[in-house]
C-alpha cells in the first residue's frame, strides 16, 4: 500500500517554505498578495499498518513546531486545506532524479523496525490569491523546475506514481559505415554526440577498416572522450592566430602559452622548484612543507546551472571537491572558493527570453546549491566573488574551487596490470546522461527540454563518507590509483586510468539506483559522488571491509587487463572492444582560425558638467552590484569549519568589511598558512583581453600579497569562460588572453599549475518577432591564486586600526579609465584598460611583503574596482575610523601625458587619482614610528604618504590646489559620513529570506 505523510508547520509557527516561495512571486509578475502554504510530503511504499505509519510520522515531524497528517494516498484527510480558498498542487522529482532524503529516511525507518519498500519525498503547496489562469505559471515557474521536477495539480492519487521499468538486454549497433555526410551529422546531433563532421568521418573510417559497425556504447565512448569538455580540443588544438603584431601558428595553443611558462619557470628554479605536479593530474600540486603538498583546482558548471541553478551549482561544488580527492592518491579538502557571474537581479521579468530563468532565482539557487553541498562536506568556503552583467542572462557562470592537502609520499599513483576496477560511493542512475557532450554545446531555449538528463542533484553525505574511507584507505596503502567520476562517468574515469594498460569492465555488476538502465547508460551516466579505484587483488578484502564499516558501497566492476584495449561486457556479452589508441590519440586535429583586431583607441573624457565634489560618484560605485557587500552570500557559507580560519572573508570592527583574501591554517598544529584569492574583471576584456588577463593576474596576486602571502610562492589557475570559439574573433580574444597569461606568469615568476576552460557560452532564442537572437557572455577569465605564509601571525587585514597612523599609497596611478567603474556608472566609453608593468609589479609585491613581514603595516587593502576612493572608504568604515586624504600628496604618483589643457587638467587629475583602476596599487596604514623604515623598504617603488587616520566619522578627501589661484584652499572632493558610505555599500544585496 502507498501511504502519504504531510508535515505542516504547527499552529503559530512560521511557514518558511511557503513564505519564501510567495516572496519570489513578484519576480514572475504574479500578484504580491499571493498566498502559498507548504507541506513537506513523504510517500511510503510497503506493507505497513496504521500504527506503523503513525510511528513513521513521529520520525518525520517535530511535535513542538510541526504537525503531521498521515493516511493512504488518496484519503480525504490529505485533501483538507490548511486554510480556505486554496488550491493544492504537488511537486515530485522526475524519475531518476536524486532524492537524498529518501535514502536516509528508508534507513531511519529500518532503525524503527519498519520494513518499507521505498520512500519518496515531495512538496505539497496550497495556493491562493491568484487567478485560475495564473496557476499554471505558479506551478511551472515558481514552485517547480521542469528540468528535474513535475507538478501534479490537486492532491496525489495512487495512479500518478508509476514505478520504473526493467531493462531487457539488446546489443545495439549503429550502421554508420554506409552513412553519407548528412546522415553522420544527423546522428551526431540527434544522438547528442556533438561531434563535428570530420570527427564523425574519422570514426566511420576507423570502423570501415575494422570491417564492422560500432555499437552504440562505442560511439558514445568516442564522443565523450573526444568532447570539448574532456579533451579541450579547441584550446589544445592547432590555431592560426593573427593580431596587430602579425601571425602565429600553434600546434597546441595551451601547451605553447600557459603550460610552457610553467615549464620554463621550473627549469629556471632548478633545485628550488616548488611545483610537484602541474597540468597532469585532476588538480595542480605544489609543495607546502616537509610532509605535505597542497593541491588546487577550480572548475565551472555553467550549463547545468543555467537550467537548474540549485542542482547545477550543487553538483558543481561536489564535482570539484572530487578533483583533489582524485589527485595523487587522494588529498583532503581544506577550503572551497566560489565565483559567480549573473545578470542583474533586478532584470524585469518581461525582458527575459524564453527558456531563461530569472537571474534572481538563478542567484538564489546557485548560492544555496553551493551552500548545501560545501557546508555538509565540512569544507570551509573562504573566498569568492559575485559579478553582474546583463550578458550573463542566458549563461550564468559558476566557478567552484577546492584546495586540498596531500601527503608528499602519496602524490604519485600508478595503476598496476590486473588491479580490480572498483566503483565507490553513489550508485549509478540515469542522471547526468550526456553531461560531457552537452556542456560543450551552445545552449538554446530548447535546451531545457532536450538536455534535462544532464542536470542533477547531489548527495553530499555520500561524498563525505567516500572521503572518510578514501583518506583511511590511502594511509593504509590499500589501492594503487584513484580518480573521480566526473564528466563522462565510468567511460572517462576508466578510460583515463586504463589508458596505458587496458581495461575490461563488466557493466552489469555496477550497482544501480533503480532497474532499467541499458549498458550504455551505465557506462556514460554522470551520477554524482562516485570514484573509481584501482585495487590490487590482495588488498580487496581489507578495502571492502573498510568501506562496509562506514556504510560505503564498493563494487568490483572490472579489471585493468594488460591488453591495450577497452572491452565492455554486459552479462558476459561483449558490447565494446576499442583500441585505447583510437580513444586517446585518434581524434583528428582541429584547426581553427583566430584573429584579434585591437579596437580603435578613443580618448577618455570626463563627463561634461561642473563636477567639484565626487561624493556622489563614490556612493554610486560602492552601491554598484559588483562592488557592493556580498555578506548575504558569505554568511550562508560555513567559512570556519575545520578550525583553521585566520583571515575571514569579512573583517573589521563589526566583522563586515571586505577582506582581500582568505587565510587558513590547514594543519591545526602548525602556524603555516594558505592564502586564497582571485582576480576577475570582464569589463577590461571589452577593451583588450590581453590587459584583462594581465589585470586579473595582478589582482589575484595583490589580493594575496595584501594579507601577507609570500609573492614568491603563489600558484595560480586559469578558468576561461568564452563565447562561441568557432568564430575567429572570439577565439582570437582567448588566444590574446592566453598570451598575457604566458608573459605575466614568466615575468612575475608565478606558475599556472592547472586550469580549465568552458567554451560556447552563448544562448540562442527566437525573439518576439521570430528572429533568431544570440546572447554571448563577455569573455571572462578567472584567475585563482593560492599563496603561502610561513607564520599566520604576520598576516594583516584591511580595516584601519589606529588614530594618528599614516596612509600610504603604493603604486602609480595612470590614465586607465577603460572598463573602470567610474566609466560604468557614467556610461562612458573609451579609455585605455589598466596595464601591468610586470617587472615593477614583481618588485612592489616583494617590497610590500617585506614590510608586512617586519610588522610595519597595520592595515593593507588593494586598489581595484573604484580605485583609491573605494579602497579608502572600505578601510575607513571597516575600521570605524575617520580618514583624511590630500590629493596633492597623491599627485606625484600620477603618471599622465602632458597634453591636456591646464584648466581641464585639475578636474581630470582629480578624477584619475580618485577613480582610476591602475594595477599594482595598495593602501597601507603605517604607524608614524614605522614610517622611516617603511619608506626605506619602498625605495624605488612609487609611494607616497597621502593622508592620516583621524578620530572622526567621516572620509574627507581634499582636492588638488587650484592652478589659477594658489591662495584659496582646495575644496573637499569627497566628504562623506562613514555610516552613509557603508550603507550605500551594504544596501543593494542585503537580502534576507525571512525579514522582508
Amino acid at each position, binding site marked *: 500500500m502507498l501511504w502519504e505523510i504531510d508535515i505542516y508547520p504547527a499552529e503559530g509557527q512560521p511557514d518558511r517554505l511557503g513564505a519564501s516561495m510567495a516572496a519570489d512571486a513578484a519576480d514572475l509578475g504574479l500578484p504580491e498578495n499571493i498566498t502559498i502554504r507548504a507541506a513537506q510530503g513523504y510517500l511510503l511504499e510497503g506493507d505497513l499498518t496504521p500504527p506503523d505509519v503513525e510511528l513513521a510520522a513521529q520520525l*518525520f515531524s*517535530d511535535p513542538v513546531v510541526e504537525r503531521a497528517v498521515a493516511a493512504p494516498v488518496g484519503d480525504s484527510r490529505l485533501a483538507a486545506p490548511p486554510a480556505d480558498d486554496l488550491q493544492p498542487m504537488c511537486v515530485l522529482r522526475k524519475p531518476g532524479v536524486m532524492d537524498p532524503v529518501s535514502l536516509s529516511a528508508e534507513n531511519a525507518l529500518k*532503525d524503527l523496525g519498519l520494513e518499507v519498500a521505498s520512500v519518496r519525498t515531495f512538496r505539497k503547496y496550497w495556493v491562493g490569491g491568484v487567478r485560475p489562469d495564473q496557476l499554471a505559471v505558479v506551478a511551472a515557474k515558481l514552485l517547480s523546475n521542469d528540468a528535474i521536477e513535475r507538478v501534479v495539480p490537486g492532491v496525489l492519487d495512487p495512479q500518478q506514481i508509476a514505478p520504473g521499468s526493467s531493462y531487457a538486454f539488446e546489443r545495439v549497433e549503429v550502421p554508420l559505415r554506409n552513412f553519407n555526410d548528412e546522415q553522420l551529422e544527423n546522428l551526431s546531433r540527434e544522438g547528442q554526440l556533438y561531434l563535428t563532421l570530420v570527427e564523425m568521418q574519422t570514426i566511420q573510417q576507423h570502423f570501415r577498416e575494422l570491417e564492422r559497425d560500432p555499437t552504440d556504447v562505442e560511439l558514445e565512448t568516442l564522443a565523450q572522450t573526444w568532447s570539448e569538455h574532456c579533451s579541450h580540443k579547441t584550446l589544445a588544438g592547432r590555431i592560426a592566430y593573427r593580431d596587430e603584431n602579425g601571425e602565429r601558428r600553434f600546434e597546441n595553443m595551451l601547451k605553447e602559452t600557459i603550460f610552457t611558462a610553467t615549464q620554463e619557470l621550473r627549469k629556471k628554479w632548478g633545485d628550488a622548484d616548488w611545483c610537484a605536479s602541474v597540468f597532469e593530474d585532476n588538480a595542480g600540486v605544489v609543495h607546502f612543507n616537509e610532509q605535505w603538498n597542497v593541491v588546487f583546482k577550480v572548475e565551472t558548471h555553467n550549463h547545468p546551472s543555467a537550467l537548474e541553478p540549485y542542482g547545477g551549482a550543487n553538483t558543481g561544488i561536489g564535482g570539484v571537491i572530487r578533483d583533489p580527492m582524485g589527485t595523487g592518491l587522494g588529498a583532503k579538502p581544506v577550503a572551497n572558493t566560489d565565483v559567480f557571474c549573473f545578470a542583474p537581479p533586478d532584470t524585469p521579468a518581461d525582458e527575459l527570453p524564453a527558456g531563461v530563468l530569472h537571474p534572481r532565482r538563478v542567484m538564489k539557487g546557485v548560492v544555496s546549491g553551493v551552500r548545501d553541498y560545501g557546508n555538509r562536506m565540512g569544507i570551509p568556503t573562504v573566498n569568492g566573488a559575485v559579478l553582474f552583467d546583463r550578458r550573463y542572462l542566458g549563461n550564468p557562470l559558476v566557478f567552484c574551487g577546492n584546495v586540498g592537502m596531500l601527503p608528499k609520499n602519496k602524490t604519485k599513483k600508478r595503476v598496476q596490470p590486473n588491479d580490480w576496477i572498483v566503483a565507490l560511493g553513489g550508485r549509478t542512475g540515469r542522471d547526468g546522461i550526456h553531461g560531457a557532450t552537452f556542456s560543450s554545446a551552445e545552449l538554446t531555449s530548447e535546451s531545457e527540454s532536450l538536455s534535462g538528463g544532464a542536470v542533477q542533484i547531489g548527495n553530499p553525505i555520500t561524498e563525505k563518507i567516500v572521503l572518510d574511507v578514501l583518506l583511511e584507505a590511502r594511509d593504509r596503502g590499500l589501492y594503487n590509483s584513484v580518480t573521480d567520476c566526473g564528466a563522462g562517468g565510468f567511460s572517462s574515469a576508466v578510460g583515463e586510468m586504463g589508458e596505458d594498460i587496458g581495461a575490461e569492465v563488466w557493466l552489469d555488476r555496477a550497482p544501480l539506483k533503480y532497474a532499467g538502465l541499458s549498458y550504455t547508460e551505465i557506462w556514460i551516466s554522470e551520477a554524482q559522488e562516485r570514484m573509481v579505484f584501482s585495487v590490487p587483488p590482495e588488498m580487496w578484502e581489507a578495502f571492502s571491509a573498510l568501506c562496509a564499516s562506514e556504510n560505503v558501497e564498493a563494487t568490483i566492476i572490472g579489471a585493468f587487463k594488460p591488453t591495450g584495449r577497452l572491452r565492455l561486457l554486459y552479462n558476459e556479452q561483449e558490447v565494446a572492444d576499442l583500441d585505447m589508441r583510437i580513444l586517446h590519440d585518434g581524434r583528428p586535429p582541429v584547426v581553427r582560425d583566430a584573429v584579434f583586431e585591437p579596437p580603435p583607441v578613443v580618448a577618455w573624457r570626463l563627463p561634461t558638467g561642473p563636477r567639484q565634489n565626487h561624493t556622489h560618484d563614490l556612493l554610486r560605485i560602492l552601491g554598484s552590484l559588483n562592488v557592493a557587500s556580498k555578506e548575504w552570500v558569505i554568511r550562508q557559507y560555513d567559512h570556519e569549519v575545520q578550525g583553521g580560519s585566520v583571515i575571514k572573508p569579512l573583517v573589521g570592527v563589526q566583522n563586515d568589511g571586505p577582506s582581500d583574501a582568505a587565510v587558513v591554517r590547514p594543519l591545526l598544529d602548525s602556524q603555516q598558512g594558505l592564502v586564497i584569492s582571485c582576480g576577475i574583471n570582464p569589463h577590461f576584456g571589452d577593451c583588450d583581453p590581453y590587459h584583462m588577463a594581465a589585470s586579473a593576474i595582478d589582482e589575484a596576486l595583490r589580493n594575496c600579497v595584501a594579507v601577507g602571502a609570500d609573492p614568491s610562492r603563489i600558484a595560480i589557475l586559469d578558468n576561461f569562460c568564452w563565447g562561441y570559439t568557432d568564430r575567429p574573433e572570439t577565439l582570437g580574444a582567448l588566444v590574446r588572453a592566453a598570451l598575457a597569461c604566458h608573459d605575466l606568469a614568466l615575468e612575475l615568476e608565478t606558475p599556472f599549475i592547472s586550469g580549465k576552460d568552458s567554451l560556447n557560452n552563448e544562448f540562442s532564442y527566437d525573439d518576439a518577432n521570430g528572429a533568431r537572437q544570440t546572447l554571448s557572455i563577455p569573455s571572462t577569465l578567472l584567475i585563482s591564486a593560492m599563496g603561502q605564509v610561513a607564520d599566520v601571525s604576520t598576516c594583516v587585514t584591511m580595516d584601519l586600526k589606529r588614530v594618528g597612523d599614516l596612509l600610504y599609497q603604493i603604486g602609480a596611478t595612470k590614465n586607465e579609465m577603460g572598463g573602470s567603474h567610474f566609466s560604468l556608472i557614467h556610461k562612458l566609453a573609451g579609455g585605455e584598460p589598466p596595464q601591468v608593468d610586470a617587472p615593477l609589479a614583481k618588485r612592489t609585491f616583494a617590497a610590500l611583503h617585506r614590510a608586512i613581514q617586519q610588522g610595519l603595516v597595520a592595515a593593507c587593502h588593494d586598489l581595484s574596482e573604484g580605485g583609491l576612493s573605494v579602497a579608502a572608504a572600505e578601510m575607513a568604515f571597516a575600521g570605524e575610523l575617520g580618514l583624511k586624504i590630500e590629493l596633492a600628496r597623491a599627485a606625484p604618483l600620477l603618471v599622465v601625458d602632458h597634453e591636456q589643457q591646464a584648466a581641464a587638467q585639475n578636474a581630470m587629475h582629480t578624477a584619475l587619482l580618485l577613480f582610476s583602476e591602475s594595477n599594482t596599487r595598495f593602501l597601507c596604514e603605517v604607524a608614524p614610528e614605522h614610517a622611516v623604515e617603511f619608506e626605506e623598504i619602498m625605495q624605488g617603488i612609487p609611494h607616497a604618504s597621502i593622508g592620516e587616520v583621524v578620530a572622526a566619522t567621516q572620509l574627507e578627501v581634499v582636492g588638488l590646489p587650484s592652478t589659477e589661484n594658489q591662495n584659496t584652499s582646495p575644496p573637499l572632493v569627497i566628504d562623506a559620513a562613514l555610516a552613509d558610505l557603508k550603507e550605500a555599500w551594504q544596501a543593494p544585496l542585503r537580502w534576507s529570506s525571512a525579514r522582508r
Partner: protein
Amino acid sequence: MPTPRALILRAPGTNCDLETEFAFQRAGAQTKRLHINRLLEGGACLEHFQILCLPGGFSYGDDIAAGRILANQLQLRLKDEIEKFVAAGKLILGICNGFQILLKSGFLLAENGETCPPATLTWNDTGQFEDRWTLLKTAGSKSVFLRGIETMYLPVAHAEGKFVARSADTLAALESDGQLPLRYACKANAPSVNGNLDFPDNPNGSQGNVAGVCDATGRILGLMPHPERYIERTQHPRWTRENLPPEGDGMAVFRNAVRYFE
C-alpha cells in the same frame, strides 16, 4: 585519576570531529574518534571513556531534520549504554549538531511522561544557514562545562538552532532549574527570558536567547556555538586589531571537562 579519555563520536556527515578532538587533546584529555557503527555493533564500549562528545556536522545529512536520524539511533539502540554512562557520573557534550542530537534523543531534557518533548531546535528565524560570531553569557552554575565562565565570544554556524520550548511554563521551569545555562547576549545589557534580543545578537530567534541547555545533573551540555573554533588567538575575527590572550574563550569548556576528573 589519570587523564580522562574522551570519545569523539562520528557518524556519516559529522565534520567537526578533528578540530574538536584537537581541542580535547590540548585540554589534556586522551581522545579517540569512533564511528557510530562501532558502538551499534557492540564491539566498542562506552565504559572505557569518561567524556562522550558529539561534535558538529550534518549527521546523515540532517535529512528529515537536523540530528533526527542519529538521535533516533541513540534512543533506540544505545539508550541503556548512555544512561549507564550518565549514571556513572560521566560527562556528555554536544556541539551544534551534537546539541540537536542530544535534545532530540531525549537524553538532555526529561520528557516527564508527556507525548510532546519539552523543547526542540528548529529553523533560524532568518530561514537560512548563517555563520557569525556571537557574544554569550552564562546563567547559573549548574553546567560542569561552563564553570567559572561568565562570557564567551564564539561563532555559530547553523540553520536549525532556534530553541523553542513546548510551552511558556516549560521554558520557565527549565530556567528556574538552571537548565538554560548559556544565552546569547549583547554588549550593553544582560538578556532575560522575557526580553528576547534582536537579530543578530540572538542569531536564530531562540526563546529566552538560549544558546545552550544542560540536563538536571549539569553533566550533559548541548550548545549551538562552536567552542572548538576559538581555542587560539588567530581564530578570532578581530585578532589583527584587538589585544587578545593567546588562548581562545572556547578552551575553557574543554578544560572544565578535563578538570572535572582531576
